[in-house]
């Protein structure tokens, strides 16, 4: 070491010293609290779940005796759970895609209308800060088969009554609609902000080249927004996998198992049927699946960001 220091040309050392001085000086310890948070909230649960999944536990007494892969077999043999994986994925993808398309459309319309959101900005925030429990109750009653406002209105204009919550497909789509109602404003706000970032020169150049409204949108604006759109899609996709409140309030997983998403099913297995080991195994399977889906979207986004540079 000492020898190296002597033989190293003086100029290099100085340059290195200067570069080091310019390096941002952040203390390593600034990352300590968040590292601790990650350990408690993600690291420990993961390790503990593996333990729970491989053993027999009750809520009162965890980690009683080794059972090997029994819990995983229980989880994967349970059609309600394996079905919930597919339902959760379908729900997350449909809701996120719907919110992205509608939200982007609205944001484009808003941006074309004015450079400032004004009062609308405030109104868009309201669904975001409304408890999903309350949103769920409102929709459930609006859609009540007898005496709900939707059927009341349909009857007024002479249309037949509907009962979407009564059949399997209808209930599933109703939840997608409710989630979309609540979260589309979020997409609008984010995409609107990203739209304001589109450089004016880029638009002007395209207009000079004779691009019309439509062409400008498809060839200039949307490609520019792609990384932001994919980020928003990823956020909402992850949000879709987390859906719990509206399932709990509106359908309780039914009719049958039509709206039994994985988060709902796991919470029930763990804290209502008290099958701790099975729930832990289910959780691990579910996380692997969410991780896989999220990774795919994240990779697509990274490629989009790279392509832009």
């Amino acid at each position, binding site marked *: 070491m000492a020898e190296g220091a002597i033989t190293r040309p003086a100029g290099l050392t100085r340059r290195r010293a200067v570069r080091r001085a310019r390096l941002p000086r952040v203390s390593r310890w600034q990352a300590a609290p968040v590292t601790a948070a990650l350990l408690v909230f993600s690291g420990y649960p993961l390790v503990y779940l593996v333990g729970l999944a491989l053993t027999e536990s009750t809520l009162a007494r965890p980690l009683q005796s080794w059972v090997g892969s029994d819990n995983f077999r229980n989880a994967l043999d349970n059609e309600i759970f394996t079905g919930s994986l597919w339902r959760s994925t379908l729900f997350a993808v449909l809701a996120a895609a719907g919110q992205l398309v509608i939200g982007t459309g609205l944001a484009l319309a808003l941006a074309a209308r004015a450079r400032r959101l004004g009062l609308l900005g405030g109104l868009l925030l*309201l669904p975001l800060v409304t408890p999903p429990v309350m949103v769920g*109750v409102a929709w459930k009653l609006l859609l009540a088969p007898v005496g709900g406002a939707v059927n009341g209105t349909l009857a007024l204009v002479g249309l037949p009554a509907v009962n979407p919550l009564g059949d399997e497909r209808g209930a599933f789509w109703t939840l997608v609609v409710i989630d979309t109602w609540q979260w589309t404003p979020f997409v609008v706000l984010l995409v609107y902000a990203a739209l304001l970032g589109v450089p004016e020169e880029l638009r002007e150049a395209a207009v000079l080249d004779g691009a019309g409204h439509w062409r400008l949108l498809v060839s200039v604006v949307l490609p520019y927004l792609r990384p932001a759109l994919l980020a928003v899609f990823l956020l909402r996709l992850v949000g879709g996998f987390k859906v719990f409140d509206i399932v709990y309030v509106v359908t309780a997983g039914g009719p049958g198992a039509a709206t039994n998403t994985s988060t709902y099913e796991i919470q029930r297995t763990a804290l209502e049927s008290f099958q701790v080991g099975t729930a832990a195994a289910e959780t691990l399977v579910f996380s692997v699946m969410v991780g896989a889906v999220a990774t795919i979207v994240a990779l697509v986004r990274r490629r989009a960001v790279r392509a832009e540079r």
Partner: protein
Amino acid sequence: MSRRLLTALLAPVAVLMAVPLVYIVSLSLRSRDDVLNGGLLPSEVFWRNWPDTFGAIDLPRHLANSWVVAAGAVALTLAIAVPAAHYTARARRSGERLLSLVLASYCAPPVVAVLPLFYLLRTTGLNNTLAGLVLVTGLANVPVAVWLLDGFVRRVPQEIEEAAWLDGLGGWGVLRHVIAPLIAPGIVASGLICFFLGYNELLFALSFAQETSVQTLPVALSLFQGDRNIQFGRQAVASIVGVAPVYVLALLAQRRLVAGLSAGAVK
């Protein structure tokens, strides 16, 4: 497209957005027999739900619980996320790596943490306490806050920080005297967003705080569903009382909130 045409296109969307919210207000003014009257308005205004709700459940208690949990969680989240965001934005490679790790942890659905945290809280005696719920909710929102704040720190010109190093400030000093004052609007916005998330959270509150004395508002609202004769009118009253202050907060801080959300989007 003309401004007027766009407004005409957007107006029905605004109405659609408002219907469920207006409907809740209308429900709060209906007697039990009038809840399913097939219309958007009560056939007869029924004020009794309002006093009755306060008699049926301890609404002030649930509200206080929700505020304590949400505010306490925000304090915890920011205490962790503000230094972390300075690190992720400025520590180059290692910062990027930490940011990816934080965002990856956000992808895991919260239900993953339910069982392990249940045992952790019970072992530490924090099950069925507001402190336990503050801890869990605060930790859960850390990724959101780091993600938003990172964007704010990155917008601070590095030269300002360099000047502070010359004055002999270290990482924490720079954070406290330079970065924190400059990103104050971002801290407020992220804090508010985390407040709303904590205020509306149901899964953890339902799993870790079952006793009436520590139930938050969303839990109390969800419990109306369990009754054989659901008192929708009272449930609506409780919803409105709970959400009104939050709406006021959101509208007052509207510009900051929108700016805060944008910081995440434009990255």
